[in-house]
């Protein structure tokens, strides 16, 4: 592998060009689809553009933080995040029956967003301090690091986010070389665990969502309505789609949450299977690029963190598309990079900033 000694301008500002191009590509697509899904609402477009700008700035800022500095920030970040979660537990404000926010005076802040980054960082840091594949004790401690915030977030309740945060930590363990035997054993243990969870851990509305997923037509005007309308939107799009701004399901508002969680259905309806293939190709490219950066990364912490962030990104993609196309229950996860939405996009781009920082780490570049 021969790398030129002279650093390009992009390397100097810590930008991985292929990844950045793919992300920008997604954002442009997002603007077009949000415009259509919002019923051609210019105000919403503007707000969406401003948030995207903010997210890109977050990416640029995080890209400038070298992995070494990140390592030093891991423990404080994790502890601050954790204490904020505890604070939410006692002092949080309730919106729509969920206690997820802290009132910071200026704005409401969702501490679980911090944990989306803090958990994989903490686990990656802890595991990378020891030999890999990790020993059972290390695994156990890593597991505890994952479980505490997961439990706190699940209790808010925010099942979707808690599962995503748990998976981000578990990806670190997997990438660190968690033995296949343990994975197999865990899967076997999962079966009774799922059973117990179904009976004791889940709330009625969550059970309802799962039941509706299994047979959405059983309740077409109630809980099944969203999934049915979404499947109709996707299916009626066909191969070529109905055309931009021409989707009847979305334009006539049969589709719920059009510009947020169900934006994939809008895209599928208006751009058809061709649009879906294009979207999934770009996602696959982003994930491939992220994993490549992880493999090339200099140290174990960087590898584990970049890999886990990338795979977690994919979980978002899979859960969202799976849910709107009727493969998974509706858990309320936006489609990353495409959905209209606030903080989650900033967090996501900050994560890509970290990946870029790893990609353009000086030590990595100097190595030949």
């Amino acid at each position, binding site marked *: 592998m021969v790398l030129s000694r002279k650093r390009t301008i992009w390397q100097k500002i810590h930008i991985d060009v292929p990844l950045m191009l793919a992300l920008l590509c997604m954002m442009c697509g997002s603007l077009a689809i949000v415009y259509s899904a919002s019923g051609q609402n210019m105000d919403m477009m503007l707000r969406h553009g401003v948030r995207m700008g903010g997210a890109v700035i977050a990416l640029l800022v995080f890209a400038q933080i070298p992995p070494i500095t990140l390592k030093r920030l891991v423990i404080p970040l994790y502890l601050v995040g954790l204490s904020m979660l505890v604070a939410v537990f006692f002092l949080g404000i309730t919106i729509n029956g969920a206690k997820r926010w802290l009132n910071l005076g200026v704005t409401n802040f969702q501490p679980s967003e911090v944990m989306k980054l803090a958990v994989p960082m903490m686990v990656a840091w802890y595991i990378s301090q020891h*030999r*890999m*594949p990790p020993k059972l004790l290390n695994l156990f401690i890593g597991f505890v690091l994952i479980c505490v915030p997961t439990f706190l977030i699940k209790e808010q309740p925010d099942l979707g986010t808690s599962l995503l945060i748990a998976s981000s930590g578990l*990806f670190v363990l*997997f*990438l*660190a*070389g968690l033995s296949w035997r343990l994975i197999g054993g865990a899967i076997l243990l999962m079966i009774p665990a799922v059973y117990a969870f179904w009976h004791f851990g889940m709330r009625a509305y969550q059970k309802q969502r799962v039941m509706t997923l299994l047979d959405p037509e059983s309740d077409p005007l109630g809980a099944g309505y969203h999934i049915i*309308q979404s*499947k*109709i*939107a*996707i*299916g*009626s*799009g*066909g*191969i070529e789609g109905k055309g931009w701004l021409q989707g*009847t*399901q979305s334009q*006539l*508002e*049969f589709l719920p949450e059009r510009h947020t969680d169900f934006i994939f259905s809008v895209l*599928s309806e208006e751009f*058809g*299977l061709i649009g*879906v*293939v294009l979207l*999934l190709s770009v*996602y*696959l490219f982003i*994930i*491939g690029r992220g*994993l490549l950066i*992880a*493999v090339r990364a200099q140290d*174990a912490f960087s*590898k*584990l963190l970049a*890999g886990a962030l990338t*795979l977690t990104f*994919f979980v978002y993609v*899979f859960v969202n*598309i*799976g849910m709107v*196309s*009727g*493969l998974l229950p509706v858990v309320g996860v936006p489609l990353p990079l495409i959905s209209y939405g606030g903080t989650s996009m900033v967090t996501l781009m900050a994560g890509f900033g970290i990946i870029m920082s790893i990609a353009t780490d000086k030590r990595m570049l100097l190595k030949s």
Partner: protein
Amino acid sequence: MINKRPTIRDHSAEANLFARRAFVGFVFVTILIGVLLSNAYKLQVKEHDTYKTRSNDNRIKVIPVAPNRGLIYDRNGVLLAENRPVYNLEVIPEQVDDIAKQLAEVGALLNISVEDQENFLKNIRRKQRFKSRVIKARLNEQEVALFSVNQHKFPGFNIEARLARYYPYGETLTHALGYVAKLNKKELTSLELAGEAKNYRATHDIGKLGIEKFYEKELHGIVGSQRVEVNNRGRVIRTLSVDAPTPGQDLVLTLDIGLQQVAKKALEGMRGAIVVMDPKDGGILALYSNPSYDPNLFVHGISGKNYRALLNPDRPLINRTTQGRYAPASTVKPHLAILGLEEGIITEQTRMWDPGFFQIPNVDHRWRDWQRWGHGHVDVYKAIEESCDTFYYDIAYKTGITKISNFMNKFGFGDLSGIDIHEETTAILPTVAWKKERFKENWWPGDTISVGIGQGYWTATPMQIANAVTIMVNKGEHYQPHLVQVQKQFDEITPMYTEERPPIVLKNHDHWRIALEAMHNTVKKVTGTAHKAFKGANYDPAGKTGTAQIVSIAQGEKYDAEKLDERHRDNAIYTGFAPYDDPRVVVTVVVENQGGGSKIAAPIARQLMDYYFTANPLQKGKN
């Protein structure tokens, strides 16, 4: 890559392990993306047709469009039933977030009582929330303006213009036209059974009575439809295509509204019925029953209070022309005279002594003539002119009930006239079998005597009396009485009911002349019972009076109207025609409890004929 640093960690091995795991991760990602893609393929390619259909079902709604109901005109083209736009305040409950609050505000604006609001809220809870519901019907112009200015405050609330039936002549025509009112559940069920329900999907009203009911099918028309694109709240975004409804047939009646109004005025303050018929084709020129009521009250749903007011002892809801049962009394004497002639019981020359009563041989009971001292020598002419009872007691006694019944049945007594409204009764033409069934009693010869003067068990509707005289006037020729002349759609005109029925053929056709001449004399001769009423008419009328006793007068007692309860006073009847040599109009008048036919009914008939011949003057040389 060689790690030279002396640590116990094998970084190269760790890097390899990581690379393997990352690769496994990538393979997993690729597989799962494959799953998403194949699911998208299944939905978008394999099941595309199903979802496309369902997507269209979502957005495309076919809205039925009600046809305009056919209009009804009188014989001269005067509009009798029309469709007027009314403005209703409607709401689609689904489109309103807090309907109770919004309704309270609208209610304050448009004066909708709290009770009405509560009823409305109670109602919508049970029904489909996507359908437009009427909150307040028939807004006036001021209310429409008031709401329109404030409409932006009430999303989901709309003013809808609909066509509603209106009867400009109100109670003058109720018993002929009937009315339309809101389609009810029972009617919907019968429409379903008849396979007609589809045609009524957009229709609010249905004919409930009279012509509106009888000609419901013709008046209604054929439902149209509109394909529209709607959003998820059912709001119409645009119209995709329209299949226009076919309006109902317009009906032109044989009625003359002017004559109808004269009839109404003539019966003011009395209970009674008037039928004016054109003997040339059986067309009804006037059909009025008093008291009447305003049909417009029923169109938008009659209030309980208004309805209860109609349930009074004068029974305005009854159509007396076709449902009123009256003893035909002396108006059937010309028919009975013909029967007597036909049966050979009398001849044109027969003269009989009338002592003022009739007795069956060996029976003490005396059937009295209305004139206590009798009419002296009476022949068939005088018997009709002066309405001599004794003459007919004799004919009836000698003919017998069966022959009387059979003969009178040919003139339509005991049968429905078949007029084109459903509100009709056969009344009673008594027979031996009828009495047996009704009273479980044998027919006594005495029963026949009263039948001979159109009383006893015999009852008839004014329509039957009119029809029987019309047959006589036509010398046996027979037309179906009817109200509708033609139906019109666009420029297509279909005549209705010109049906001629098999004529009544007498053994001697000259017998018609005798009866008709006698009826002519009834008016012409000073001694005739209708002479006074028609004195000075500028046309040549003929007719027969009748006075029906409501209670029997005891033997030897004298009828004294003053002493009798109003409801027990005589019914007055007159049936006549004009001009004598070429009859163009037959008028039948029945007035309840007002006294004699010559004094009460004949003058009313005169008013009608006067109007008729003023509006339709006779050509010179024809009078």
